[in-house]
């Protein structure tokens, strides 16, 4: 925000072979490259392009043609939504806002030169870079598991074929079989996500395979909305779900995918489905760009979402380490708007305003039984700090829970329109 509006002529001169480089010197428009078309990246691209009305060139680098939201993917597992309803295309970003879509992976970033190299070899010059690649999994987080085992023991923590695979596996479980989830250590995307998933799997099994069991192996002492989930599990799925926390070895777990075995503190369990959600870190391109710290996440300036290592590189969503906000689609979308506002101010001289952030996460426990937790945040110099919050209460009546669920449907329609146009 304090940065001066700058001249780009110097950098433009070096950018001969660049995609869409303006032909005429001196008429160069400032350019923003956004890596990752998820909740953070696509929102940021859309807000910059929409609000600058053509004054800034925006290129969105994203390999997939269709983005499947992780949010609501648990509802698909529970049978409340079909898979297609999770898919969103990027077409409107191009047609309505003039964003250039580069359908490729970003393979490298040269921050000194101000360029991004795509897997296909193309090089993109940028004035500002936005990195929003979501998460990757931390190596060795669950001994015995790595990505090559995800076809046997799916993570289903990036939505798409993995989510479909997990659902097919649950549906194919033998009568009275065991579904096991290995929950991740903190920090990870969507704190209530694993527990909403347990609820949805329980919902599905209660109908199709009521004598089945669910084993939740959890390295954490406590988790998000715990009281609400436990109350709901007791009410709707009594006797089906067993949670093994760290006091019973939930933090000492190993898997043997070929044998479909889970070893918990030395005890071997045979299971029928095993959903391994490993520990997480920022998407790999963040590390390649040299902006991560030794925790594997990217420290950012709370006022702008610019990385601490480089004020021209903004990092949004799950990949960032910003303070009190959870890693959620709502949070990524909220952060993207702050970054878009700051980037526009820096590149085109529009007004800069103080950062405001907020988050709400809804979870579905059973049919029409929705709960929510949310907070608002402000930027301090150290971190994004929570200033106010609320959470659903245990013992709420059915009408309120139903209204909360309906609200979440409204939110899904709202946020996906806000991200993809």
């Amino acid at each position: 925000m304090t940065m001066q509006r700058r001249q780009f002529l110097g950098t433009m001169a070096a950018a001969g072979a660049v995609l869409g480089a303006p032909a005429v010197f001196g008429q160069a428009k400032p350019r923003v490259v956004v890596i990752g078309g998820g909740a953070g990246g696509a929102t940021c691209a859309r807000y910059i392009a929409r609000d600058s009305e053509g004054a800034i060139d925006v290129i969105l680098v994203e390999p997939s043609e269709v983005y499947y939201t992780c949010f609501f993917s648990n509802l698909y597992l529970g049978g409340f939504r079909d898979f297609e309803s999770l898919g969103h295309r990027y077409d409107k970003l191009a047609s309505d806002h003039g964003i250039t879509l580069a359908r490729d992976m970003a393979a490298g970033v040269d921050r000194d030169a101000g360029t991004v190299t795509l897997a296909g070899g193309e090089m993109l010059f940028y004035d500002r870079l936005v990195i929003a690649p979501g998460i990757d999994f931390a190596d060795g987080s669950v001994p015995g598991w790595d990505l090559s085992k995800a076809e046997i023991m799916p993570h289903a923590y990036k939505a798409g074929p993995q989510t479909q695979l997990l659902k097919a596996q649950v549906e194919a479980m033998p009568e009275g079989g065991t579904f096991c989830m290995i929950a991740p250590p903190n920090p990870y995307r969507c704190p209530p996500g694993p527990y909403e998933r347990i609820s949805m799997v329980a919902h599905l099994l209660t109908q199709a395979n009521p004598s089945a069991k669910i084993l939740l192996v959890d390295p954490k002492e406590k988790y998000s909305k715990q009281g609400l989930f436990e109350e709901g599990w007791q009410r709707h799925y009594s006797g089906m779900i067993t949670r093994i926390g760290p006091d019973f070895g939930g933090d000492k777990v190993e898997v043997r995918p070929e044998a479909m075995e889970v070893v918990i503190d030395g005890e071997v369990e045979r299971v029928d489905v095993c959903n391994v959600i490993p520990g997480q870190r920022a998407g790999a391109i963040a590390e390649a760009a040299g902006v991560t710290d030794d925790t594997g996440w990217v420290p950012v300036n709370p006022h702008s979402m610019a990385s601490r290592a480089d004020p021209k590189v903004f990092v949004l969503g799950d990949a960032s380490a910003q303070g009190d906000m959870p890693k959620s689609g709502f949070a990524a979308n909220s952060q993207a708007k702050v970054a878009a506002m700051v980037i526009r101010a820096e590149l085109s001289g529009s007004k800069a305003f103080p950062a405001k952030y907020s988050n709400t996460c809804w979870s579905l426990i059973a049919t029409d039984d929705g709960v929510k937790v949310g907070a608002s945040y402000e930027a301090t110099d150290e971190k994004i700090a929570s200033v106010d919050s609320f959470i659903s209460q245990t013992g709420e009546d059915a009408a309120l829970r139903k209204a909360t669920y309906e609200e979440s449907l409204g939110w899904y329609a709202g946020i996906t329109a806000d991200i993809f146009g």
Partner: protein
Amino acid sequence: MAGRGATCLALCLALAGAPGTTALRAAEIGDAERGAEIFGECSGCHEIGPEAENAIGPKLNGVFGRRAAAVDGFAYSKSLTRAGRDGLIWTLKTLDAYVANPRTFASGTRMSYPGLKDETDRADLLAFLRDYSDRPRDIPEAEPTARRSLPELPPDILALKGDPAYGEYLAGECQTCHRADGGDAGIPSITRWPEEDFVLAMHAYKQKLRPHPVMQMMAGRLAEEEIAALAAYFATLTE
């Protein structure tokens, strides 16, 4: 009329503060007898008293301390039902705001009544209604400041002209939930409201007159100019 309101307020305070005699009684809200006459405004739609039945509006016996939209057998609007479910309780403060301007208090309410603008009239009317509530004398007087209902926000707040660029930025936060195209499934639409209604509704959340926790939090941290900027922006949104 401003004079009368001020006198009443002074009187109420004096009564409430008087030691001994009145300590166990709730202070007067207003003149219930005069309120009975003003109830003529309502009686086309509402009945009150021992024989009261639901009519165009629900019967108003026992309304103080009751959850909104809670009379059995009355078909309330979605909006008032939602407010009740979210925890709206009829108190002096919330009734005053509702009667003053039903639509800004619960947009979408089926009560097609433009609102009783005069503060003293409302105080008198509510004093009358309170006599038909359970143990009316036990219902405490709200703190005097809470009496000012929303529609009487100082004119300078209502007249604030928002900065549209700021409104556009702030609106980003709202559009995560409220769709820019005005869609209203699950979450109400907030596009193209008259600016004043919008400002009043936001202040109703800010002052926790409207019950919803998400909106109380969102509005709670918005300054007056920010609410004005948002109202200006959403009023013009035609996308």
